[in-house]
Every structure is written in structure tokens, then in C-alpha cells.
């Protein structure tokens, strides 16, 4: 009896260090979000969570993506970050490398590694050394958004099926004032914001080349650049952009409202973006009658996915509570809210979204994947932001260069420069692969 008691005490003491911290049921659980529109889903989860942890206070701060990244960068390495790290796939490697992530509990590991629940590419993106370090939560899947009224007016019966049609339709949809000034963009091209620019340019680049600009290299963790290999196609794509930004076929202009904002205000007829646009346009442009279509086809046909991941900060004092919150966030109600309010697409396949798709059929092309429509993700690497920013600067400067019109050699030079820019950064980070 006494022996047992001593063993028990010893065991208690040994585990004290971690146990005290891990099983804490009071305190403040902090969460920072770089996508403020998902706040609502966390609030839905909070009610559920509070039943288990009435004494844990939840504090969620929302920032815009850049500010969120800056805050994380400063706080996490010093151990002052939030308890739950809501990371995008391109931020994830940085915090894994920085040893900031807690081990995923067994039940959640089982969920994440079950291909019936989460598709393998998404599991892979959070896995290192054979196990997951976070729970893939939702995806920002790319699609084509088009204004039905504008299409009707231009005599177009449906969305463009191919990349050629995409440009052709853009010309037909463009409207000009008598002075020649554009009043409506046939297509809203991503003209500013270089990292997003590379991404959107990359959407079409994938269709016409079958590859992303950055692809995983031979050795794990390395990255190769594909532009030079696909130089003709890449230069042609840049020329297509130049053709539709300058001269007679001009279909977009810097002075117009752009992106979701332009689309929601009727200043653009179509554009390539991600799932969230549906919810955004419904809220900000309720009069816009629009449709959603899969990406236009080229040599390949696929949709880009960028993943939001739930991890727990290794330095958290409320790890158990944090993981329980992550569990709550897997619930049907929360995932419904993600779809409904923020428009992002939950990754769990073992939940039922049929009711939602019936209610909002525009989600069909985003959620019911047709055969042959590849779902691809960015090769995860810690230099992602820097490469996309710098490459995007080269490409977007190319957009502005009217001398590129019908100038294949010039376009090739620009794309070669983009290639070299990417190579230089990857080499500097020691992750370049031939």
C-alpha cells in the first residue's frame, strides 16, 4: 500500500512538469487569425468548447495577412505566440523548422492520416518525418468567376472552357467609352501585389505547361524552377497578358477597380480567384448575378489549392485545451459556417456538405471535382513568399511594358529573368534543385 502510494507520488512528480501545464482548465487561450473572415467559425466553435472548459477564456485577434505574419514572426520564436497557430501552407515550414509546433495527439493523427477523411496531398503538406504536425482545415481552391449578365450581353452562352477562349471572351466582354477609355474590364488581371501576382499568373501557367513555376526537387525539401524548361509557353503567356493590357485588344487597365472588389462592383466581367469570392460578392455586391466555373483548360487542367492548417504552439500552457478546441473546429456546424460565411472549403471528406451545395449551387464546381481535374498544391518551402514576391515583381513589370506587344524575344527575356530571380533566392536558402 505504502509502496504504491510512493510510486504514485513519484509518477505524479515526474509528470508534474508537463501535467500541470497540459491539463490546465483555466486561463486564456489565444488565437490569431490572418483571415479575419474565419472568425465567425471560431465563434461557433467557442460555444461548444466552453461546455468543456467553462473557465478558459478565448481571445481571438484578427489581422490582415501581412500583419498577422509579422506578429507571428516576432512572437512565436520568443515563446509569446498564440496557443493555436492557424498557419497557411507556405508559413507552415517556417514554424516547423523553428521547432514551434506541438505533437499532434493520436486521435487527430489518425484522422489526418486517413485518406478517406483527408486527401493525401493535404496530409503530405503537414507531414514531416512520417507524421503530421497539424490538422489541414480548409482550402482556398481556385476557380473562374464570371458575371452572367455581362456574358449574356456579349452573347456568350457559358464560361470559357480553354485558356484561348478565356482571352477571346475577355476581349468580347470589355467595354470602352467613346474616348477609348476602358469602362469595364473583360478580365480582371492581378496587376499589383507581386506575390499574389505570381500565384494568379501561375494559375494559367499550370494549365498551359502542366507544371507549377516552383515544383518539388529530387531531394525532399528542395525546389526546382520550371520557367526555362517551359520558356516558349511561359513567354507566350506573358505576351497574352501584354496583348490584353496594351493596344487594340486591351481588356484591363490599372485605373479600374480590380479583383474581387472590381468584380463585386461590376467593373470586371470575370477573373480567377479562390472559393471565398462567392461569399464576398454575395455580401459586397448583392446585385451581381454571377457564376462559378472550373479553371479554363490548356495542356493540363487543374485547380490550385492553398491550405489553412491548425497547429498548436509548443510553448502553449494550455495544450490540451488547445487540441480540444482544434477537435471542436472539426465539427459539422463549424465547417458549415466556414463554407457559408467565409466561403473557404473544408477539407474533411467525412462531413456532409450536400445541403449547402443544394442551397448554393455555385459551390458545385468547387466541391464536386470532375474526373481529370487535378488538385495541386504549392511545393512547400520556407522561401515561398520571397520567391513569389520577387518573381511577381519581374512579371508585373513585364505587364507594364508596352514594348512587349508582339515581341516574343522580349517576353522570353523577362521570363528568363524571372527564372534567374527564383533560382538565386532558392540557392541562397540552400533549397535549390536542378
Amino acid at each position, binding site marked *: 500500500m505504502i509502496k504504491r502510494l510512493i510510486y504514485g507520488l513519484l509518477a505524479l512528480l515526474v509528470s508534474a512538469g508537463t501535467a500541470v501545464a497540459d491539463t490546465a482548465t483555466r486561463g486564456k487561450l489565444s488565437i490569431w487569425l490572418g483571415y479575419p473572415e474565419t472568425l465567425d467559425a471560431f465563434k461557433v466553435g467557442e460555444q461548444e468548447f466552453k461546455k468543456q472548459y467553462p473557465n478558459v477564456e478565448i481571445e481571438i485577434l484578427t489581422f490582415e495577412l*501581412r500583419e498577422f505574419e509579422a506578429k507571428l514572426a516576432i512572437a512565436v520564436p520568443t515563446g509569446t505566440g498564440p496557443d493555436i497557430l492557424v498557419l497557411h501552407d507556405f508559413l507552415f515550414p517556417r514554424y516547423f523548422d523553428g521547432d514551434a509546433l506541438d505533437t499532434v495527439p493520436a486521435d487527430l493523427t489518425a484522422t489526418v492520416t486517413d485518406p478517406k477523411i483527408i486527401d493525401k496531398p493535404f496530409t503530405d503538406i503537414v507531414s514531416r518525418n512520417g507524421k503530421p504536425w497539424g490538422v489541414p482545415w480548409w482550402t482556398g481552391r481556385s476557380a473562374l468567376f464570371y458575371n452572367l449578365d455581362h456574358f449574356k450581353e456579349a452573347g456568350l452562352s457559358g464560361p470559357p472552357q480553354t485558356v484561348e477562349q478565356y482571352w477571346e471572351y475577355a476581349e468580347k466582354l470589355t467595354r470602352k467609352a467613346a474616348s477609348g477609355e476602358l469602362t469595364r474590364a473583360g478580365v480582371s488581371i492581378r496587376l*499589383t501585389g507581386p*506575390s499574389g501576382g505570381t500565384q494568379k499568373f501561375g494559375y494559367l501557367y499550370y494549365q498551359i505547361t502542366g507544371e507549377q513555376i516552383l515544383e518539388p526537387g529530387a531531394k525532399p525539401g528542395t525546389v526546382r524552377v520550371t520557367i526555362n524548361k517551359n520558356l516558349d509557353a511561359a513567354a507566350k503567356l506573358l505576351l497574352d497578358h501584354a496583348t490584353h493590357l496594351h493596344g487594340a485588344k486591351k481588356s484591363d487597365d*490599372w485605373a479600374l477597380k480590380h479583383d474581387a472588389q472590381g468584380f463585386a462592383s461590376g467593373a470586371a466581367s470575370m477573373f480567377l480567384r479562390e472559393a471565398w469570392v462567392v461569399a464576398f460578392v454575395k455580401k459586397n455586391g448583392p446585385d451581381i448575378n454571377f457564376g462559378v466555373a472550373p479553371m479554363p483548360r490548356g495542356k493540363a487542367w487543374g485547380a490550385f489549392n492553398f491550405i489553412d492548417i491548425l497547429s498548436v504552439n509548443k510553448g502553449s500552457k494550455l495544450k490540451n485545451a488547445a487540441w480540444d478546441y482544434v477537435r471542436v473546429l472539426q465539427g459539422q456546424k463549424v465547417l458549415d459556417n466556414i463554407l457559408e460565411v467565409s466561403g473557404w472549403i473544408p477539407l474533411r471528406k467525412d462531413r456532409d456538405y450536400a445541403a449547402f451545395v443544394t442551397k448554393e449551387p455555385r459551390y458545385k464546381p468547387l466541391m464536386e471535382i470532375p474526373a481529370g481535374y487535378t488538385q495541386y498544391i504549392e511545393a512547400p518551402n520556407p522561401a515561398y513568399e520571397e520567391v513569389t514576391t520577387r518573381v511577381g*515583381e519581374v512579371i508585373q513589370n513585364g505587364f507594364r511594358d508596352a514594348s512587349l506587344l508582339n515581341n516574343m524575344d522580349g517576353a522570353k527575356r523577362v521570363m528568363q529573368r524571372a527564372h534567374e530571380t527564383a533560382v538565386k533566392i532558392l540557392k*541562397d536558402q540552400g533549397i535549390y534543385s536542378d
Partner: protein
Amino acid sequence: MINASAAPAAYAPTTRSTRFAAYLAGLRRQHIAWVICALGPIFLLFVLIRVYPILETIRLSFFRYHITQRNRPFIGLDNYERLLEDDAFHTALWNTIQFATLAVALTLLLAFIVALLLRSIERAAPVYELLLYVPVVTPWVPASVIWKWIFDPIYGVLNYGLSLIGVPKLAWLQDPNFIIYAIVMVSVWKLMGYFVVVYGVGLRNIPEEILEAAELDGATPWQRLRYIILPQMKPLILFTVIICTIIYFNIFTPVYVLTASAQGAPAYDLKVVISEVYQNAFVFYRMGYAGAQSVVLLLFVMSLIGLQFYLLRDRK
């Protein structure tokens, strides 16, 4: 920098042959204990809050300091070598130089002209100075919000005004050819008022008798400006040029807020040095490299100030 050479002459040592005892007595006369007690803590604060972090930044510039990585090796001058071939940084530096030159020149020239003109309408001057000072106390973020709205390519009142004289709609904040002027415009608007007041002070200190005497001697307004006012104002002009140079080389907030792109994230369509530093540090997580960029900026601005001193020094 602006150093103690401007101290009142009364404090110059009276004799060259100061002995140690006299030196001690001098210290006592100058209340050295009081100086230490009063200045010491404040100076320590400067060391803690300014000098140390700056030195630390300089030190980090010799390391490969990736913010989320534990391993932070010493790499000597590698960061500086990288700077030599970093086009983005060169663009940023060149933009900043262009921006600062234009903004300093416009701000100070306009401020000087206004201050000069106000001296001819001295009765109304306080009202004008007050109105011109309003932007100075407007914080940068709301100021940038205001101008973003004015520069809006579609609904902006600036493009509306220009359309009245037949200018087509311009993408002030999206077109790299215009954005620098847009930010110069905002900066001049924001800071001119301060320098109007400062120049006003200097101009009021010029004895009216000298000007009247010159007028009686038949000096034209231009001659009075060229030979009396400008020489008198020279030290003040030097001071304002330096202050203004520092402010404009460090420009960041308006660039950050004004160039937020459609998605909301800053597009950095106008690269300036501090936005490059910020981006490298907090977006690319390259702290050491950002440190090297700051050191270059520091050296650059310091030598510029040195040059300004040399060019505008009193040649007595």
C-alpha cells in the same frame, strides 16, 4: 550632426593654460554632480531604447538570422555582398533618393515661399499658419486613408478635378509612374505647415531696419531676398534640410497604408528603403539581411547630412 559648436560663446574657456585644480574648480562651478544626476538617467534611457537596439541591429547584420530558425551562424559580410546584387534594394534606394529629393525640395521651397509671402501680410499670417499646420497634427494613418480616397481612380475627387480639364482617369496609386508623385504630394501636404512656421520664426528675427535701409537705397525685392534675407536664413535652412531629409528617407507609414492592394496586403508598388527593410524582416523573416539594409541606410543618411553641412557651412 548638429553639434555643440553652437553653444553660447560665454562658455568658452577664458585662458588656454587651465591647470588641474582650476579644472576641478571648473567642474564644481559647472555643477558636475547635478549634470550627472539629471542627464545620466535620461542618457541611459537613450542608450537602452535607441543606441542598444540600433547596435544590436548592426551586429545582426553579420549573421544569417532567419527569424524562426534556431541556428543563426555568423556569416561576416555575406549580407552586404548580397546587397550589392539585390535589384529590389537598389530600386528601393533609388526611389527613396528620388522621392526624398523631390519631397525635401518641394516641401521646403513651398514653405519658404509661403513664409516669405506671409511676412507681407503679417496681420493675416497667424490664421494661415494655423490652417497650414492642421495636416501636421493629423496622424499618418487617417491622413493616408483620406488620400487613398482622394486618389481613388474611379471615384476619387482628384481624378474628377482633372477630368474637368480633360485629363483621363489616372491610376495614381497603381501606376508606378505616378505613385511617387502621389506620395510626394501627400508628404508635402502633411509637413509643409511645420516648416512654414519654422521659417516664419527665422524671417521675423531679421531686423526690419536692415530691410528698410536697403529699400531706401533702392534695392529691389529680389536683391533684398538674395543679399539680406537668404544669408540670414542660411543656418535655419541647413537645419530644416537636415530634419526634412531624415524624415523623408525614413518614409514608411504612408507607403504602407496608401499602397495596400486590392487584396488588402501592401503591394509595395513604390519600393522605399524602409518598406524593403520591413518586408525582409517580417515577411521574408530575414532579420540579418534587413539589418544590413538598415546599416546602409544609416551610413547613407549620415553621409548625406555630412555633405549638407559641408555645402551649407558658414564660410567666414
